[in-house]
């Protein structure tokens, strides 16, 4: 762990953002497991984790609503830093350099790289789709307000959005393991200067060029 040698650390995620992120992660895991239980018979056994089929059916939508609410707060915090810029398209075009750890060839990255930004907007789209379609197929309270055609479409949209979201989050989780120091950043809040220099140099420069040693916007 290089950060034990180098005391130069930079705060990347404040306690508030970390709390927000991990609440979201917890909600996602619970929503995904309970949702996958109903997604395909091969995974119905997951309903046992929630107290059986009926409890899975009862809990899943509430977990989903909680996840969406938690995400709204996180999204409001990180929205500005996730705007796609010209350099991001260049970064995406060089995806081969990205996956092969040839980071020195890439354009300098701000607080978030283009992959993180894309993930952010995929989550925005999927969660919006999941919430809207989820309300329509929430049989206990809302399905009675919708026609059968809308309900059928919503069931399909819900499954498609869930599939895309699960795949995206799998990539997100792996990326955090792959880019060492990321998990530490989200658990403890800090990164080393070297980490910021290597992975988010434009963000690093922005911080050190600030008149006083304070972090950028969170």
């Amino acid at each position, binding site marked *: 762990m*290089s950060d034990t*040698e*180098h*005391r*130069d*650390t930079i*705060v990347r995620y*404040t306690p508030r953002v970390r709390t927000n992120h991990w609440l979201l992660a917890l909600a996602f895991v619970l929503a995904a497991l309970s949702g996958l*239980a*109903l*997604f*395909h*018979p*091969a*995974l*119905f056994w997951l*309903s046992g984790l929630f107290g*059986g*089929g*009926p409890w899975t*059916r*009862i809990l899943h939508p509430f977990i989903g609503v909680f996840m969406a609410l938690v995400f709204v707060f996180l999204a409001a915090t990180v929205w500005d830093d996730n705007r796609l810029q010209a350099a991001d398209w260049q970064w995406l075009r060089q995806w081969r350099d990205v996956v092969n*750890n040839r980071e020195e060839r890439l354009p300098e990255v701000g607080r978030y790289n283009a992959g993180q930004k894309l993930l952010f907007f995929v989550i925005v789209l999927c969660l919006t789709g999941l919430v809207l379609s989820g309300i329509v*197929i929430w*049989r*206990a309270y809302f*399905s009675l307000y919708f026609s*059968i*055609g809308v*309900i*059928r*479409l919503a*069931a399909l949209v819900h*499954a498609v959005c869930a*599939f895309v979201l*699960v*795949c995206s989050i*799998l*990539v997100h989780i*792996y990326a955090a*393991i*792959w*880019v*060492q*120091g990321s998990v530490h950043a989200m658990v403890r809040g800090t990164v*080393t*200067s*070297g*980490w910021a*220099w290597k*992975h988010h140099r434009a963000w*690093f*420069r922005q*911080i*050190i*060029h600030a008149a006083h*040693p*304070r*972090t950028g916007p*969170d």
Partner: protein
Amino acid sequence: MALQSLDIARRSATTTPEPQVRQSYTGTVAKLIDTSKCIGCKACQVACMEWNDLRDDIGTNVGSYDNPPDLTDRSWTVMRFTEYENPKGDLEWLIRKDGCMHCADPGCLKACPSPGAIVQYANGIVDFHEENCIGCGYCVTGCPFDVPRISKRDKKAYKCTLCSDRVAVGLEPACIKACPTGALVFGTKEDMQQHAAERVADLKSRGFEQAGLYDPSGVGGTHVMYVLHHADRPQLYAGLAADPHISTFVRLWKGKTKPLALVVMGLTALAGFFHFVRVGPNEVDERDEAAARQALESAQPRRPPPGAGAAERRP
């Protein structure tokens, strides 16, 4: 209604073959509803209530003979009355006994995510096993005939069982037993088709040239069939579906896409693992730390010596 005396041919949310050694060699069963003989007495509704121990709430008059006005969790069959003025200007009172059609290809069973909550017996009856029902309502989404109803009391799905408990012991369904005009008949599907053919010939001889049997192929045929005077226009009978089939949305939702999606999710996780094995982690090394230190120092020439903690950024 779980009954082990009937062999199960198909079971919801089950991906392995059902026991198939015992087959229905004498053919499947069917209920034939002859709308041309029905007088709308609702004896079948009463028989259904009695046999199945169902008592629906007392409702209100909605301006027609339909009572209750719709299928409910406790009204598994309902007479639907339509006043149709034919091209000659005569009134025809079309009465249809509505309820589960017991499709050969049931949309409810296809949509159900709970193993064994919906079964199809070897004799063709589609039955809900409420003890396995989780109350999600996917059966409602899948049904092409708008039949299943979720109970407000227990959040479980209910519908006509075709008296699977009676049929299992060699009795005809309760509604059949109660019908005073012979509009309801029960037997093997083959016998019912033959009987229907005679009825259709009779109706045609009486001027109903479009008379016919309603056994829609879109759902693989049904184990509840209608003889209709106007088989060319089933919609006349309180909106009976002209071409019922499992919706394309439901097929996409519950078809091959789901196992495919599972495989893709698994491959995504695997791709990560093998990326780690082949390419390895993206790590920060001493050169990066040195470069960062240099950048820091050049930006802050009057920076206090390291160890004073001044470089540590605080939120």
